[in-house]
């Protein structure tokens, strides 16, 4: 626990001692604003909720989360600090978890800084704040899923660009797995149960129920499992390919 929080604190301080943190936060907020107010027709819709705001989150995360995740392990490999970190008396799990939590908290901070949108909608109308809170929780959980995928992809290579592309591709597959575009690939030859399972893996489906204000245990378990699975894969990748 101590080792994990020590790694996490080091990572977090790393974000803020470089421009990465500020660039990311600004881009995050600008994109959130543009999507919500221009593309999402926030004002013209005439209803007071944050649907247009949350609807774009999966698409925003698709690129922004891999951008944060790509350096997690690739940079350690490139600079050789992986050798330093993994010969300290801490387990690979603690290192993986510490780094993941730091990045997740950081994304949480960026997400929290969108609070003016929440204030605006309260100023303009009478939204259901419970639904909005659920939306924030769901959004953060989904970001965790993307992040765990990105962290694992980053452990595969010392090249951040490769890590970025790999994680966008895998995240994209997870995002869309419920849409006909993907299920059509399987229908006709795969058993229905498999297709249902694949569709069940979709981030979109699970996120949309939460963002409608329905916090279903199954959705929470789903995201927790996705995060756990990819972090486990991350640990295994590191154990198997430390040298490369």
């Amino acid at each position, binding site marked *: 626990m101590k080792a994990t929080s020590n790694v996490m604190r080091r990572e977090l301080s790393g974000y803020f001692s470089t421009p990465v943190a500020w660039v990311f936060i600004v881009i995050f907020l600008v994109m959130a604003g543009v999507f919500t107010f221009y593309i999402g027709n926030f004002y013209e819709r005439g209803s007071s909720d944050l649907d247009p705001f949350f609807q774009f989150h999966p698409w925003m995360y698709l690129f922004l989360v891999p951008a944060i995740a790509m350096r997690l392990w690739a940079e350690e490999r490139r600079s050789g600090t992986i050798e330093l970190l993994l010969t300290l*008396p801490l387990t690979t799990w603690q290192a993986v978890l510490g780094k993941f939590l730091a990045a997740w908290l950081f994304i949480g901070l960026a997400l929290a800084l969108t609070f003016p949108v929440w204030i605006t909608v309260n100023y303009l109308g009478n939204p259901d704040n419970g639904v909005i809170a659920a939306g924030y929780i769901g959004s953060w959980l989904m970001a965790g899923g993307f992040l765990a995928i990105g962290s694992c992809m980053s452990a595969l290579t010392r090249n951040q660009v490769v890590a970025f592309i790999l994680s966008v591709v895998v995240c994209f597959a997870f995002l869309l797995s419920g849409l006909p575009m993907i299920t059509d690939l399987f229908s006709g030859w795969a058993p229905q149960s498999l297709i249902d399972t694949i569709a069940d893996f979709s981030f979109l489906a699970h996120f949309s129920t939460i963002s409608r204000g329905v916090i279903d245990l199954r959705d929470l378990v789903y995201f927790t499992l996705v995060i756990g699975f990819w972090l486990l894969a991350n640990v295994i990748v590191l154990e198997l390919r430390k040298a490369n």
Partner: protein
Amino acid sequence: MSDLSIEARSLSKHYGQLIAVDQLSFEVGAGEVLGFLGPNGAGKSTTMKMLTGFLPPTAGSALVNGHDIVENSLAARRCMGYLPEGAPAYGEMPVRAFLEFVARSRGFDGKSAVREADAAIDRLNLSSVPEQPIETLSKGFKRRVGLAQAILHDPRVLILDEPTDGLDPNQKHEVRDLIRDMSSDKIIIISTHILEEVHALCNRAMIIADGRLLVDDTPDGLIARSRYHEAVTLVVEHPEQVASALSELPQARKVELREGELTVFPREGAKLLEVITDAVRENAWAVSELRLEAGRLDEVFRQVTQGEMS
């Protein structure tokens, strides 16, 4: 403190087809400062990476203070300090923050982590740069940060991959003093390409090439393998004449003239210095320099590592 030991048993590492370390076996005990020597790509760093628990061996095993480096990796890592090759560090961090991070990872918390970091800063002469980001430091300072990180928790076992690479002569001297001061109750393994360092620092030397152990000896023993060992070199007027006179000596096996220096090699077990000084006096040769050779490490190194390859 009898539990202080390193034991490598047929330690091997393969990278695909390449055999980087080939069945290395050795034991090291308290007070030993072991120098790893060998040409580039010999497998020195790979061996160190395995000993410190970073790379799992392909075959064989190693024990550090009785802890298996794979089965009981955390316990083994706890009693070691390690300077990886190239002294990697988190570049964006200031020196002190980095050392505090390592101290906390080593189990110190709060105030004691700060204290240990400060002590390490003092020992490695880093007090002029504690708040500077590591990536903006010069190469020698970076190396010292790496050393500070390795010795911070006063480990019983120290593994240092090229610790003095990139240091200026003063700092080299200081780091060697530091290592020597610490060595009495520890095990220290260093790898180096600076052969004089082996003599200055180590009480044992291993030469490795192509992943195999070729020589395991004391530095003196190593030097004694040199063909220059016990030879006498002199600088003299009319060297050709002197050379032919000296080659008549029964103790001399061979005389070589190179770059104005005349070197006389002794026969097995013979002492040359006395007979040559006598000859100089008798013949009244105009000698400007005369010395007894201890041996040349670089020549032994070349002989051992290249003799093996061909």
